[in-house]
């Protein structure tokens, strides 16, 4: 495993940004690009897309499976360690043996990523917001936006609103209804619990809760049945990363529409397009990578199975990549 060293150096062209390294990877940013230097070469990613991807990777603790920043660079969660790669999941790079992979301690790499995000995010740019809602990240270093990048991931233990569980969102908590969901009813369910049953007789307005999310493409758990998690999220513009899950996940489109590009998880070859409208349900097989496009802000329920034994069982072929056969 490689060790992580954070070098406190400024990039050569004194734009004010720090340079970071992890193992044999070096990261620099300039006005428009993140530069990823690795033993095989240098790879560039537009800085807006890079920061948005980095934000998700950090916030989700490397998430389930693979987080592809683009067709070359990404991370694979090994739960405790994480593989960082260039070209590993790109057919051309891999077959020409031009790929590069290094394994890191997850906590150490996350620390470097977090510092990078902190240093490279300029004032006025929120990597979690839709492009129409925030400023631009370009140019030389200008201030910071610590508040935006330190949001906590919201995970309900049982269900939002139960005593001791995730609280509701409201104007009073500063969580206002998003500009694109002003027509989502904010009414409350009628709840009549007999004394002593307040922890059990429970309901809440989930759509209203989701309409008040100020982040995009950032699932938060609202209800659990053991390892079955409903992760609700508001989607607008493009999912910054292309997600290659290490297990089957499902989508339930709650409102509006998302168009998904589905590519093969290993090679990146296109496999399908999936158009989802309100009420549509679809599985994402365990061997694909997916990236969504949401023209209007929409609500999506990402349905995950949090069982920690799954990645191995899918990888070993014990489980088929498709959830249902008919």
């Amino acid at each position, binding site marked *: 495993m490689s060790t992580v060293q954070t070098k406190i150096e400024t990039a050569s062209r004194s734009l004010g940004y720090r340079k970071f390294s992890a193992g044999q990877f070096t990261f620099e940013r300039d006005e428009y690009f993140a530069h990823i230097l690795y033993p095989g070469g240098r790879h560039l990613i537009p800085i807006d897309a890079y920061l948005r991807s980095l934000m998700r990777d950090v916030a989700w603790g490397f998430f389930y499976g693979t987080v592809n920043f683009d067709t070359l660079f990404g991370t694979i969660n090994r739960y405790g360690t994480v593989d960082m790669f260039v070209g590993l999941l790109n057919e051309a790079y891999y077959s020409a043996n031009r790929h590069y992979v290094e394994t890191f301690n997850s906590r150490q790499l996350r620390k470097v990523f977090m510092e990078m995000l902190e240093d490279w995010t300029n004032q006025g740019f929120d990597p979690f917001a839709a492009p129409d809602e925030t400023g631009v990240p370009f140019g030389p270093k200008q201030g910071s936006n610590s508040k935006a990048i330190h949001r906590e991931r919201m995970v309900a233990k049982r269900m*939002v609103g139960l005593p001791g569980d995730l609280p509701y969102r409201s104007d009073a908590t500063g969580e206002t209804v998003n500009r694109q969901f002003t027509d989502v009813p904010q009414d409350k369910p009628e709840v009549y619990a007999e004394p002593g049953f307040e922890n059990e007789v429970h309901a809440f307005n989930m759509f209203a809760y989701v309409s008040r999310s100020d982040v995009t493409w950032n699932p938060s758990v609202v209800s659990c049945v053991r390892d079955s998690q409903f992760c609700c999220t508001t989607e607008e513009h493009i999912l910054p990363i292309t997600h290659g899950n290490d297990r089957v996940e499902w989508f339930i489109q709650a409102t509006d529409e998302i168009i998904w590009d589905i590519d093969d998880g290993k090679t990146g070859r296109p496999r399908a397009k999936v158009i989802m409208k309100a009420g549509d349900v679809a599985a994402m097989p365990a061997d694909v990578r997916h990236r969504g496009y949401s023209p209007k802000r929409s609500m999506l329920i990402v349905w995950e*199975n949090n069982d920690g034994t799954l990645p191995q069982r899918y990888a070993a072929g014990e489980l088929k*990549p498709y959830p249902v056969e008919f």
Partner: protein
Amino acid sequence: MSTPTYFGSLNDFKKGGVTVINDDPKHYVFSNVFEVASKSKPYEKVAVGKNLNYVIEAVRAEGNSPWYACEHDEAALVMDGEVEVHYVKPDRPQTPAGKEGTVKLAGEPAGQKMGWVKVRRGHMALLPKGAAYQFRSAAPGVMLVQTILGDCTVEKWGEICQK
């Protein structure tokens, strides 16, 4: 004002779909909950999602449902209509220990009334473990139930999914 939010309903839904480039559409197990409920009998619990033993069922809410009980938590999300859920704490356990999924009861069990909720589109109700419950809906509605595969789960993927 931005584009209105589109919800879909039992009487008015649009459906997307899978366009394959090099794949089988069946791999995406694609269906629409409103379409499924439009063809279901009242309170038929039709699986529209399955992840090993976990399921999501599309349920047409219409009239009074049977009484149900469950060993573990479940959650019901209303996608269309207005539904009441009435809860009873049974005097005696209604389900065998370790039983997974929704269990249909013969009728309302003897026990203590716990209360009730009235939920509309977008509202989610907890169906707490160990409780018995009944749905009541004056007009046809649609719910999604997050639960575990059980005796009441209906699997008819070939009828509901894109092929």
